[in-house]
């Protein structure tokens, strides 16, 4: 099967179009996050003090910051879920650190403290390392790809309000377009690098462990 595989086949069959088994926990955590959000809202309506405080802090945020809040909450949950799936590796520790950093920015946003510079640093570093990992052949998969898109959107929120001259604002606009382009390119490149071998490992792990060729 691995003998004569064209570049196109390697791309189309790539794990970039699937959900890696080790990323399943990310979906569970995002669903859990939605349930927590509903529970907090419900408790706030019932007069819960802490949940009421949280909801009132959220409601005073302008629309753009509410959007950012949602993006960061989902992105942090996904990073945490992916970290749990790779707990025994350096990549897992890195994803855990990104999730913690995103939660820290989220907290500052809710408390009304400065968050723009910190968010920019966290997003740029997280995206750069993610893209590097993808190109190096680590399986990004759909969950990693979606997380990167959410992080680029969060970065766009900060870059939109860049205060400065025409050149600075043009650079901000091009950074967003470039970040999306590089995310796609890294997905594409990573798909070819990871190739059919990873796809085979996903589909028939027993065959691999026993050394048999995948049917």
């Amino acid at each position, binding site marked *: 099967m691995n003998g004569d595989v064209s570049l196109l086949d390697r791309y189309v069959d790539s794990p970039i179009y699937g959900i890696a088994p080790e990323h399943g926990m990310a979906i569970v955590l995002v669903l859990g996050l939605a349930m927590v959000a509903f529970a907090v809202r419900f408790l706030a309506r019932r007069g819960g003090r802490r949940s009421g405080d949280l909801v009132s802090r959220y409601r005073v945020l302008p629309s753009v910051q509410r959007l950012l809040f949602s993006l960061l909450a989902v992105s942090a949950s996904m990073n945490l879920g992916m970290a749990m799936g790779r707990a025994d590796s350096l990549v897992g520790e890195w994803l855990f650190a990104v999730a913690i950093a995103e939660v820290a920015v989220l907290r500052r946003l809710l408390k*009304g*403290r400065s*968050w723009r510079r910190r968010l920019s640093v966290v997003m740029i570093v997280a995206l750069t390392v993610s893209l590097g990992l993808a190109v190096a052949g680590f399986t990004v998969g*759909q969950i990693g790809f979606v997380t990167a898109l959410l992080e680029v959107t969060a970065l766009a929120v900060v870059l939109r309000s860049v205060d400065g001259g025409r050149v600075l604002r*043009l650079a901000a606009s091009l950074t*967003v377009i470039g970040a999306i382009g590089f995310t796609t390119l890294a997905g594409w490149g990573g798909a070819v690098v990871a190739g059919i071998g990873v796809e085979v490992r996903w589909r028939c792990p027993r065959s691999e462990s026993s050394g048999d060729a995948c049917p």
Partner: protein
Amino acid sequence: MNNTTHVNEGPVAAVSVLLFVQGAIVVSLAVEAVVAAVMFGGLSALSAALTVAAAVVTLRLVANLPKRRRRTRRWIMRFQVGWIVFGLLDLALALGLAGRGLTPSGFLVRIALPTSIFWLLRRPSVRSEFEDRESTDETEPSWELEEAWA
């Protein structure tokens, strides 16, 4: 810095961010489609032409958003409906031919993102902003591409 800033951060600003991200995604798709058209030719050239046209329309809509014209709002909403229809068509084809649904990123880009933009633009507060204002708000931050495209 606290939450109160000098810039407009209302729902239209959120639409501006989402629409710009959508435009950036379509630009990436257009580049990908052009590369595919060069490599494989045939029908992929038509697909590339459509994607490039979609990228131009999206950036044009982003450029016109700060002017808050009712016509722009309507065109953005129509464009989002088009995205959702194509997304659902893609989903139907994927289910019918390949027996599997959209990928999470496909769902995010083709269904969730256009639905969010459409939903934000339908809100009465946003609608009233487009009805009341016909000129550009000087205090509103804008993507620099807006000036070039407007």
